[in-house]
């Protein structure tokens, strides 16, 4: 093969950069300056970053994973016909399309993510080459707003931001309400820790989101749009900003788009770090320059929203599905999924899972299939215990319910929620009481403080959970937690408070034994809660390497270097931070 006919495609989403994509690109430039290099967003296989494809332009693709600057030369050599195929890194090749590593993508149905990882997000022409801006041109040429809403109604898509409200119903509200000007807001706040599909879409396929915004805006008559993007996502802000500029130049954004009387423009607003700002009314307050405090609904934003005008707020993933729905038809979208939940949903897999990343599957897939077939199961030698869905508003689904199908109603029946699609996978090393405490600290911190039950109630719950984790819990505390759960759910103003107790409710339901072990036996079965565990050194396993002594931040470990079994931990000084456990190469540290 001629090296100068070869294209190198490097995944350069935030996760690719974290894994070292810049160095990989540098290595290609250095060792094979004749190859053309392109960068694309994250294809979703974050566990194999840096991902690099070598493509000969005739559709022959070789895809490699875990590429580093050191392994680049062997890849180049093979493609110049000078060396062997670097098999250990191979994910996909024309001769071997059935590799286990490739199953990750092969098992997915990608609609929202269809372009992410395939196109250069900074190139509008690459987006156009993949049917980009075809949908908006189509509706401007021969669809009325009513027809657009009808098509979206046929697709049965429900909002992917968490609440799952039918998209066309919301648009209809805004369509019918009076206003000289109407707004569309793209909710890119993605406050749920553990979910990152919106980041991936905003930075990896921004034009798709813009086109989705155009379709939504046309349907109910919005002329101004805001993209509210969290400030923690600098690359998303950058790529989205460039996309807006390029869309203007192409004439698909701005005044009188494609010579029609439809005008629509988008401004970016950077978030400033407040989870509650993902809530619609708080988000509006934040764009207006205020503290992001939710207000009572009604009036709903569709009637009276941003600057008092009719406003629709849609999630990034919801918007990303729209161009496909218009191009292929609502029926095609609805052919995926189940009666109650149509289409596909993107999930972010993270935690104790072998293959973490983004997956998009048809609704109705079993949780187990996502975790095992695609995610590859547990990343440790311990079995999976649960998966947390829906973040701070959601709950834990235990392993014995992994056959639950991914549908709104079925997931709600477990006590968790679909949410925005974060899946944090847990094995036995996660303590469910500690996890609940983590979520309650989160919601308590993030509560805007406007309503008493949310402000004080979540604080009380967190205090009770701390008490249990510290080993001072009593059985009455469980009842108190259950009562607070009911009260906070009933009395809070917005979704933050109404759902804040969910993580506690589900862990109490499925993992009550762990709470009881903390309370009755003063024991943390997962070995996490610092007050209830001790670290000791098994002297027969200690090789005397001294790593633990060097790492211990409080100098609680002493011993003689190179003398086997000489190291001991001073229990009075030990803070149970776990650093020794982490660095010990001979598994000589016991946690109990």
């Amino acid at each position: 093969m001629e090296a100068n006919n070869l294209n190198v495609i490097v995944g350069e989403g935030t996760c690719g950069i974290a894994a070292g994509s810049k160095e990989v690109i540098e290595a290609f430039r250095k060792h094979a300056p004749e190859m053309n290099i392109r960068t694309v967003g994250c294809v979703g296989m974050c566990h194999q970053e840096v991902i690099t494809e070598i493509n000969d332009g005739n559709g022959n693709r070789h895809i490699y994973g875990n590429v580093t600057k050191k392994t680049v030369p062997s890849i180049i050599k093979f493609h110049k016909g000078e060396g062997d195929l670097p098999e250990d890194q191979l994910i996909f090749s024309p001769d071997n399309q059935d590799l286990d590593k490739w199953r990750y993508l092969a098992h997915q149905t990608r609609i929202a993510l269809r372009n992410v990882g395939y196109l250069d997000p900074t190139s509008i022409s690459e987006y156009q080459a993949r049917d980009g801006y075809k949908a908006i041109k189509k509706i401007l040429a021969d669809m009325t707003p009513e027809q657009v809403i009808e098509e979206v109604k046929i697709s049965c898509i429900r909002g992917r931001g968490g609440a799952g409200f039918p998209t066309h119903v919301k648009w209809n509200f805004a369509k019918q309400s009076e206003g000289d000007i109407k707004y569309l807001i793209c909710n890119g706040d993605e406050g749920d820790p553990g979910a990152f599909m919106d980041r991936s879409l905003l930075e990896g396929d921004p034009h798709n989101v813009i086109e989705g915004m155009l379709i939504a805006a046309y349907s109910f008559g919005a002329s101004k749009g805001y993209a509210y993007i969290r400030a923690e996502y600098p690359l998303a802000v950058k790529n989205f900003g460039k996309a807006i500029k390029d869309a203007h130049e192409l004439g698909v954004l701005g005044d009188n788009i494609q010579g029609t009387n439809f005008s629509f423009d988008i401004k970016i607003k950077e978030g400033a770090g407040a989870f509650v700002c993902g809530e619609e009314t708080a988000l509006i307050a934040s764009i207006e320059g205020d503290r992001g405090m939710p207000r009572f609904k009604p009036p709903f934003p569709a009637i009276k929203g941003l600057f008092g005008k009719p406003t629709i707020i849609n999630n990034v993933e919801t918007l990303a599905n729209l161009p496909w729905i218009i191009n292929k038809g609502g029926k095609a979208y609805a052919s995926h999924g189940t009666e109650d939940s149509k289409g596909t949903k993107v999930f972010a897999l993270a935690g104790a899972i072998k293959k973490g990343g983004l997956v998009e599957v048809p609704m109705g897939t079993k949780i187990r299939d996502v975790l095992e077939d695609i995610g590859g199961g547990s990343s440790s030698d311990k079995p999976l215990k649960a998966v947390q869905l829906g973040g701070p508003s959601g709950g834990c689904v235990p392993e014995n319910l992994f056959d639950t199908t991914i549908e709104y109603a079925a997931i709600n029946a477990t006590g968790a929620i679909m949410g925005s699609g974060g899946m944090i996978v847990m094995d036995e090393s996660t303590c469910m009481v500690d996890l609940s405490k983590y979520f309650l600290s989160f919601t308590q911190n993030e509560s805007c403080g406007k309503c008493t039950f949310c402000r004080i109630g979540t604080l009380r719950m967190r205090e009770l959970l701390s008490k249990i984790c510290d080993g001072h819990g009593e059985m009455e505390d469980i009842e108190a937690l259950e009562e607070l759960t009911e009260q906070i759910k009933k009395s809070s103003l917005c979704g933050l408070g109404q759902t804040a107790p969910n993580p506690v409710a589900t862990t109490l339901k499925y993992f009550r034994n762990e709470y009881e072990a903390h309370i009755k036996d003063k024991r943390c079965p997962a070995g996490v809660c610092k007050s209830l565990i001790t670290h000791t050194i098994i002297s027969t396993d200690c090789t005397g390497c001294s790593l633990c002594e060097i790492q211990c931040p409080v100098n609680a470990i002493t011993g003689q270097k190179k003398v086997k079994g000489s190291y001991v931990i001073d229990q009075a000084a030990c803070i149970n931070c776990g650093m020794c456990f982490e660095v010990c190469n001979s598994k000589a540290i016991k946690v109990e």
Partner: protein
Amino acid sequence: MSQSLEAKVEPEVVLDWINKIGSDSSSTVPLLQAVQSKYGYLPRVAMDLIIQNSDISGSQVYGVATFYSQFRLKPVGRHMIRICHGTACHVTGADRLDTSLRHILNITDEEQDTAENGSYTIEQVACIGCCSQAPVLVIADEVSGNLTGANAQRALKKHAKKNEEIVANI
């Protein structure tokens, strides 16, 4: 220590932002973001300049500045270390990254987040969206993932060496 870290604010820079970004209350967040991106925190002088030269009231400025977690009122060190404390990072050991970096920077007081020599400030943030590589931290603008306490220290030492910063407990 914090004395020496106070930023010197040039009034004309702040006035220029007010001109460009806006002087009504809907500009509060972007104005404070501009200030913070330059100084790393919100110096009091800059806040006063905004209050005196725009239609934004003092309670609005301070209300907004204290509401959002992005804004800080305390000066920062020369480099920021952001440790993710999102869910994925929490269950995979974000706490250990904290402990180990505080240890080598010798930040012993829990209330403190900046090293004595003004080199680094440690900040805890919610999810940077790199959850599949948890636990994750960002030094200056560089994201690293799949960390243990020990290699978090290594990453910091590398950064310190490149930037000629002294890290206390090496």
